[in-house]
């Protein structure tokens, strides 16, 4: 998902405190920043919320790529608003992570030097305007699958950030699907572009949910802490079941010859993504990893004079005010 392969930290705390903590979680209590929490809970959450925040921020880049080349002024304004929302999502989440005792600059630096990750999906390029449709429809669609249950996560600030984010996501998915409808019902060339976008985005979207639960060693602890609400395979299945009819409505073909409805399980059988490719992308070898990190580093470096200038201005104003008092 936006947070993939989150390693949960082992915890070496007082067993009695741990038991009380777990009882609170089981009872549906929200944990707030000043409450006692196991070290492992705190560290795992910093990693998870941090990665989620980084994904929102880096996720602006593939779509930002098309803002200046949107086909109409209206599409441009809509895409701009969507990308601005993603910046907001990043900010809500960074603030939630900061309540756990990490600073914003530390989080930023860990993204910039590669110590922290962002979602694999944003290391794929957006080659045509139809990709703006596919990203909104599939990528935001997959994100919604994961974020809706996270509104009930045990850590209060994270849950509240998720509530805000979920309110805004539906617009994202709908504007994407709206682009897809326009393209799929357009000229032959437009339809080909729409199909091509689906072909390229389908498997990377399935990867967003992370490897099969059978292979993910860390989900059990995170599940009992209620910082992971569903299994990866469960969410992936739900996403496929929801998305295939939407592709059919568009008259597009999901690029999976083995895709077929399975009456007994009440869901589709489908081909999983290429996990070797997924791990390569995570290691930094995806099509756009270098470009994305370079863009974030450049933005950070180029913005340094603004950050410093505004701080100097604020300090000057403060001392002028103190002198006047």
């Amino acid at each position, binding site marked *: 998902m936006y947070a993939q392969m989150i390693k949960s930290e082992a915890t070496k705390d007082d067993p009695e405190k741990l038991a009380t903590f777990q009882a609170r979680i089981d009872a549906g209590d929200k944990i707030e920043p000043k409450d006692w929490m196991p070290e492992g809970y705190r560290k795992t959450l910093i990693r998870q919320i941090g990665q989620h925040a980084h994904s929102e921020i880096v996720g602006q880049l593939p779509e930002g790529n098309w803002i200046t080349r949107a086909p109409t002024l209206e599409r441009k304004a809509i895409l701009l608003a969507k990308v601005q929302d993603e910046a907001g999502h990043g900010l809500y989440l960074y603030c939630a992570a900061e309540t756990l005792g990490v600073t914003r*600059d530390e989080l930023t630096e860990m993204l910039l030097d590669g110590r922290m990750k962002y979602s694999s999906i944003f290391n794929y390029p957006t080659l045509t305007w139809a990709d703006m449709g596919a990203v909104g429809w599939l990528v935001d669609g997959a994100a919604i699958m994961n974020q809706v249950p996270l509104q009930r996560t045990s850590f209060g600030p994270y849950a509240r950030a998720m509530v805000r984010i979920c309110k805004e996501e539906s617009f994202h998915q709908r504007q994407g699907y709206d682009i897809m409808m326009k393209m799929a019902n357009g000229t032959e060339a437009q339809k080909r572009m729409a199909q091509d976008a689906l072909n390229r985005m389908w498997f990377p979207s399935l990867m967003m949910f992370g490897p099969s639960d059978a292979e993910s060693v860390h989900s059990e602890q995170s599940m009992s802490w209620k910082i992971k609400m569903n299994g990866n395979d469960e969410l992936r299945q739900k996403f496929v079941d929801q998305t295939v009819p939407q592709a059919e409505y568009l008259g597009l073909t999901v690029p999976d010859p083995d895709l077929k409805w399975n009456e007994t399980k009440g869901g589709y059988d489908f081909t999983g993504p290429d996990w070797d490719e997924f791990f390569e992308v995570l290691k930094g070898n995806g099509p756009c990893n270098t470009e994305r990190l370079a863009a974030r580093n450049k933005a950070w470096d180029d913005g340094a004079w603004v950050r410093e200038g505004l*701080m100097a201005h604020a300090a000057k104003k*403060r001392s002028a005010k103190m002198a006047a008092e």
Partner: protein
Amino acid sequence: MSNEWPLWEIFIRGQHGMSHRHVGSLHAADEAGAIKNARDVYTRRNEGVSIWVVEARNITASSPSEKGPMYEPSESKVYRHPTFFDIPDDVGAM
């Protein structure tokens, strides 16, 4: 890092004559910047008609571990609630 923009807590009054409510936090160099950022981060869809910003370090909070002793005085005074008193139906609405 020493030169990081300070953290501000943001309170917003919604449309309907409600009190200001805490909505989250953000970083800004000064109060004017905090209000501008709050507008962009927390009111993109008309969520507010008024914004308060308070630098986070100026907030004093009660400690959750003292929850028991802190609120004990109110827990033992059930007679503060109107339902403590049985008023016969014949008396009418009260």
